[in-house]
């Protein structure tokens, strides 16, 4: 019997040697005459166990990890992939990190061959319902934009559907630039047809016949997989009514902001547009455009296939459904954790994440990317929910959590937030373009010990200007990491002065 072995082709698994492991397994099988076929799946998202290899048995799949090339001869032993091998993890779905999850969007990711085309039950049901009822189904599900703003998806779709135009567009924002996030990348590499189906449903619901996936250039694997998947879907006749194209960004973080993304797609500098007009009224090439994040569109097929009520039954408060949370940075068990909204930050970091990778105490977490607030342990009872985080001057953004141990210097982190804002500013509005530079200079003075009190007051004043005077979230949200660092970690802004050159 042919032995089926699953090895992730996910970029993060490849980054830690999955390709080498695949080659070693293939060579070892040949040498021993073992009849074996390797399937390159996506990743299950248990990254501390990557490269994680799974083997099909009569009792389901059995996982081994983390596997290195050197482990491969031993894995073949007397019987290949014996379950008494020290790297054997048992059934992957019994690993506590995976067992505690509710996988809706990520149900197939890491399980299937990413380029295997299954029936599109979501689109089929949408077609049977018609565009208007499809739209209402998405409204009823309570789905909110997963890019960070949390805007109700159904309302956005309805606006586009109700705006008359000669053409309309669906644009998928796959410019996942927030540090600590990788869920979009995992979907595009591990289950690209889920996103394609979601976009096709969106196109059907609002009457758009063209869709663009704007993928950041830092994700070459994702772009390649999406391109291949679109070719396959097209050849299978699945995209007859909805044309799709992948566009690759060029290293500008600000293009994750929807209006600069649209300008970039049009071939311009990725500068932010003033709103109104909303993209739903005048978006790509001035036409009504749905701009949704990867995770938003990837949630749509299951909402249609299994019904809005099933999706809305999960969640917390006004945040319905599941959120793919990404644990990253200095965390023992880093990975993708999909769960209904409402789980507490402390449970995520301490129990599921297992604390820090270095074994030192967790001092701070940054939730929601480089524009998200730094939270101390005192706020670990915050529920993972848009409103609960907003109530504490934070944001969940795209669901990334970066963990820091007690060696972190929060004044340096605050400085970095301002520096990053300056590096990535599109330059259109003054608070962001100039304010970020003055912010870095002022923070340097604080670190050097110059007139700390006065300069901290200046930082607070500057943050007010950034928050209320910037055109988009880059300048508007940079105050979150800066002011949360100042507020919750004041001792770090009063350390003995150090020369900047010493760092």
């Amino acid at each position, binding site marked *: 019997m042919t032995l089926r072995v699953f090895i992730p082709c996910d*970029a993060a698994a490849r980054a830690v040697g999955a390709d080498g492991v695949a080659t070693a397994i293939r060579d070892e099988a040949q040498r021993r005459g073992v009849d074996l076929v390797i399937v390159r799946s996506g990743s299950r998202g248990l*990254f501390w166990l990557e490269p994680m290899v799974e083997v099909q048995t009569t009792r389901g799949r059995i996982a081994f990890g983390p596997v290195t090339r050197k482990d491969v001869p031993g894995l073949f032993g007397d019987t290949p992939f014996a379950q008494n091998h020290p790297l054997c993890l048992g059934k992957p779905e019994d690993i506590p990190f995976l067992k505690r999850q509710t996988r809706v969007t990520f149900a197939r990711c890491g399980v299937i061959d990413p380029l295997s085309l299954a029936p599109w039950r979501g689109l089929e049901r949408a077609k049977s319902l018609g565009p208007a009822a499809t739209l209402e189904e998405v409204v009823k599900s309570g789905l909110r934009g997963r890019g960070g703003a949390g805007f109700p998806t159904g309302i956005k779709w309805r606006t586009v559907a109700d705006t008359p135009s000669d053409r309309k567009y669906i644009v998928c924002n796959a410019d*996942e630039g927030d*540090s600590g996030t990788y869920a979009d990348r995992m979907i595009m590499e591990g289950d690209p047809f889920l996103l394609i189906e979601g976009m096709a449903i969106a196109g059907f619901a609002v009457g758009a016949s063209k869709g663009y996936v704007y993928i950041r250039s830092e994700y070459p694997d994702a772009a390649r997989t999406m391109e291949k998947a679109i070719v396959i879907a097209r050849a299978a006749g699945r995209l007859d009514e909805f044309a799709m194209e992948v566009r690759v960004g*060029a290293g500008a973080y600000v293009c994750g902001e929807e209006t600069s993304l649209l300008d970039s797609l049009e071939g*311009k*500098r990725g500068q932010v547009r003033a709103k109104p007009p909303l993209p739903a009224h005048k978006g790509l090439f001035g036409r009504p455009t749905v701009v949704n994040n990867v995770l938003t569109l990837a949630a749509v097929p299951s909402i249609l296939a299994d019904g809005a009520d099933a999706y809305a039954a999960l969640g917390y408060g006004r945040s319905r459904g599941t959120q793919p949370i990404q644990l990253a940075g200095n965390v023992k068990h880093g990975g993708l954790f999909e769960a209904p909204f409402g789980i507490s930050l402390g449970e995520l970091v301490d129990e599921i994440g297992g604390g820090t990778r270095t074994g030192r105490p967790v001092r701070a977490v940054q939730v929601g990317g480089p524009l998200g607030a730094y939270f101390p342990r005192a706020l670990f009872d915050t529920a993972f929910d848009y409103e609960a985080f907003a109530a504490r001057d934070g944001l969940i953004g795209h669901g990334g959590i970066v963990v820091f141990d007690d060696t972190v210097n929060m004044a340096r982190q605050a400085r970095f937030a301002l520096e990053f804002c300056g590096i990535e500013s599109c330059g259109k509005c003054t608070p962001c373009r100039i304010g970020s530079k003055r912010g870095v200079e002022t923070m340097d003075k604080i670190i050097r010990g110059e007139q700390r009190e006065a300069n901290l007051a200046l930082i607070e004043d500057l943050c007010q200007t950034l928050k209320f005077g910037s055109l988009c979230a880059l300048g508007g949200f940079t105050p979150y990491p800066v002011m949360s660092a100042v507020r919750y970690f004041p001792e770090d802004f009063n350390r003995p002065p150090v020369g900047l050159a010493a760092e």
Partner: protein
Amino acid sequence: MSAPWNETVAREIIERYQDREGPLLPILHDVQAAFGCVPPSAIRTIANALNLTRAEVHGVVSFYHDFRETPAGRHVLKLCRAEACQSVGGEALARRILDHFGLDWGGTTADGRLTIEPTYCLGLCACAPSAMLDGEPRGRLTAEFIDELAS
């Protein structure tokens, strides 16, 4: 390896995309893939073909971090400097790597072998510190990576 400037090749690239909506970024990507950079002659050719001013094309080239107007070294290392990598000592490792090659961010070694550039997140944040070497992802980097780069 990238080829020297060739007007015919550039025109072929432009023609491939000219009928698409908003074709400038795909053209610039392919031009850079072919020639290792977007040279001034490319800017002129593209501007003429797309009925744009050279200033407009230059404005786009200079806006995006990816596009360069002079070629990089034979190998390009993009080291992540974002928060997840910072949390596991990424900055200290980056400093050691830069010092080892006597480079600052964006610099190229004198023999033209290696360019080191900053990047802000490669989506490998659960396997930090991370980098991309000639387009291939690398994670859980340690000081051993310096030896690998040097050899």
